[in-house]
């Protein structure tokens, strides 16, 4: 084996380098998509052979503009004429990252126990059902109302998750199938609640399934005044990440979780009840998703429709994978994808479909989750087993 490939191999076995390569590759392939299908670039295809320089120049301009818009929409808007619009992008990133971090932690917890929780949507929707009931149907003092809604959201989500864990433990049903079915059931149930007068349908509401706006006493307080939509959700997300870290790395139950995830048979031999652990792990996983549910349900000032779940339960899977199921990793991954969400509208404005970010997102995680793919792309040998 020559030295060069050995060095490459060592570099690639380092996680951070692999993540960096994955991110770069993801953005590179995304750029190709962005350029090839752009209207301005397509217009130069007629002269592709007579004047290839024009095509390439336009292509690079498109990519540059596209990522420029992403930056402008998600970090800081340097061309703004007042500080509010200048700093609004970064606050939007934080606001949109919060639920991704919360739900991402939930999915990550599942991964650590060897459970694949694809049921984020269903658990989130059930949490929303509880939170919306409290926030629109009860009258409570400021503060208490919000806390109660948060607790109920977590409890509802936890219950849904625990049911999945129970079914897996008692009947052996695979959690992926169970959670997918629960997603649909929960969505139908929530829509029915929103549709039915006397349950969650807005007062004087018409045919559309929509709830009243959450009571002012239940809304998440804003962090930076009324100019910015950013609320305390991001702080809740950071607290959740701390709790996750403590739970998984320091607590006894987290030790049990990890042990079952590492080798269920060994855990069983060591006297851990694998079945009970599955129930608790699914409940704990769903509890984090419940925080995201509260964030979605109490972070709005208008009435809720069933689309308020915003596919966060599914995005959380990519967040957890990118974050390597670690607390810090999930926070960073959530911030990155939150920035993608925040930057989308400004990309749309300049004529670059923000859907390209979906491709980049998927590619990055694909490369990270499948190290052999990167090795195959660079024709690298397999690293020796540790």
């Amino acid at each position: 084996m020559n030295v060069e490939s050995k060095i490459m191999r060592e570099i690639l076995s380092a996680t951070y380098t692999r993540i960096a390569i994955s991110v770069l590759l993801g953005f590179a392939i995304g750029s190709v998509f962005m350029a090839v299908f752009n209207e301005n670039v397509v217009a130069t295809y007629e002269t592709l052979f007579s004047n290839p320089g024009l095509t390439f120049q336009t292509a690079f301009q498109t990519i540059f503009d596209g990522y420029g818009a992403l930056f402008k929409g998600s970090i800081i808007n340097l061309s703004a004429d007042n500080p509010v619009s200048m700093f609004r992008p970064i606050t939007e990133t934080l606001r949109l990252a919060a639920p991704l971090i919360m739900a991402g932690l939930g999915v990550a917890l599942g991964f650590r126990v060897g459970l694949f929780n694809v049921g984020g949507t269903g658990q989130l929707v059930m949490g929303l059902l509880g939170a919306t009931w409290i926030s629109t149907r009860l009258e409570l003092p400021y503060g208490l109302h919000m806390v109660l809604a948060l607790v109920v959201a977590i409890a509802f989500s936890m219950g849904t998750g625990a049911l999945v864990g129970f079914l897996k433990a008692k009947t052996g049903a695979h959690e992926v199938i169970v959670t997918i079915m629960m997603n649909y059931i929960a969505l139908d149930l929530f829509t029915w609640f929103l549709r039915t007068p006397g349950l969650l349908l807005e007062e004087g509401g018409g045919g559309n399934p929509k709830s009243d706006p959450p009571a002012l006493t239940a809304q998440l307080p804003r962090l930076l005044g009324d100019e910015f939509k950013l609320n305390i959700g991001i702080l809740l997300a950071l607290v959740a990440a701390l709790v996750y870290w403590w739970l998984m790395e320091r607590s006894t139950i987290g030790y049990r979780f990890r042990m079952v995830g590492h080798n269920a048979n060994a855990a069983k031999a060591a006297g851990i009840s694998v079945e009970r652990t599955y129930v608790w792990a699914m409940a704990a996983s769903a509890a984090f998703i419940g925080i995201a549910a509260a964030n979605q349900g109490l972070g709005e000032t208008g009435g809720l429709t069933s689309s308020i779940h915003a596919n966060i339960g599914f995005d959380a899977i990519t967040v957890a994978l990118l974050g390597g199921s670690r607390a810090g990793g999930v926070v960073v991954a959530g911030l990155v994808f939150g920035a993608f969400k925040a930057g989308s509208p400004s990309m749309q404005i300049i004529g670059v479909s923000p859907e390209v970010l979906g491709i980049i997102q998927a590619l990055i995680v694909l490369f990270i989750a499948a190290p052999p793919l990167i090795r195959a792309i660079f024709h690298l040998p397999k690293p020796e087993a540790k």
Partner: protein
Amino acid sequence: MTKTEVTPGMFSLSEVRPSWKTPSVLAFFSGIVLVLFGFLGKTGDVTYNLSNKGDSFSVPDVVVASTFANVVLGTLMLLAATYSGWLTIRQKHTPMWVSLVAGLLGATGLLGWLAAGNVVPVSFILGSAVVLAVPIILGALGGLMSERVGVVNIAIEGQLLTGAFMAAVVGTITENLWLGLIAAMISSAILSMALASLAVKYLVDQIIIGVLINVLVIGITNFLYSQWLASSGEEANYPGTFDIISIPYLSGLPIIGPALFEARITVYLTFILVPLVWFILFRTKLGLRARAVGEHPTAADTVGINVGRTRFWWVTLGGAIAGLGGAALTIGNVGAFGREMSGGLGFIALAVVILGRWQPFYVSAAALLFGFAIILRVWANGVSPGIPTDFITMVPYLVTLIAVAGFAGKVKAPAASGQPYIKG
């Protein structure tokens, strides 16, 4: 990732004692039909429209009181439940056809309850259910083929979406729907090769890879749709659909004639593929080898079957069939590609594989249940407004949930499903 527990001989039903789950589920549903739809049902006559005008054998419409029909149907279902209970007492398993017949009776009752004072266009509902079920059936067939050789295929959604997209785009650009159909199958097969090689050769977790393939395909098709198809729909996304072919004589049959034999080529291909896959799986050497690989790869390897190659080609071919299912969505039904138009059908197909116990015919029946639920929601809204259609749509998911939980210990996935095989 947890591994499926290995229990050899899991498909020999006789080894396991029959449980009371089937009779209790049947009794529960017959209770609903008998009491809710029957005794407490809605007044008014219901007309079951059984044949179209111009059929060669014309059958008169059946007109009955909605409540009476449901009492009769519920009683029949109760008989099925009793039969199933009697079999269980005698330590015998309830055959699948009993559940199927009970399901059919229940569906008829539900239609009669919904359309009290109205008309039930039986063949229209059946026909629409079939057309809507075709992508699910084909997707599930693809999933079944890959699970039978031991590869879990979560990427059915992505395969359907790829097929739907390629069929529409290639069909429009070449102005030839057949080329679109072939492009759908090939592109989806290539996608499956990626899944197969990552899962089989590189031993990447199959479920994670499947989910990521879905996310990637959704991302790519969403992007191409909004950046390209949305603005130049005429040139790229206007394929139209296959013509409806009416099979002589058969299409004149009452009820099933217009439902099954006045359809597009994608439906007929499904009619051919389901028995074909069944035949190959259970009646040929090829199928025996495939199942051996899925049940016990080490044993298969020992007798000289190439486990990796078998898995690779079955997953790839399964992908081609799922791609055909995608094509059925666009050039076999709607006539254009829409954003995320598979809308979760791939995940339903995944459940249908389990609900249908990894058997092509049962899988098709389970897929029909979902097709029926989709058309029912649309139709019920029109015929009887105010009915909580959310609960009707929920039923197939609940049935799947109950079935998946209930089958445990009875029928399980192919033993080696989800496990990479490392020759050692």
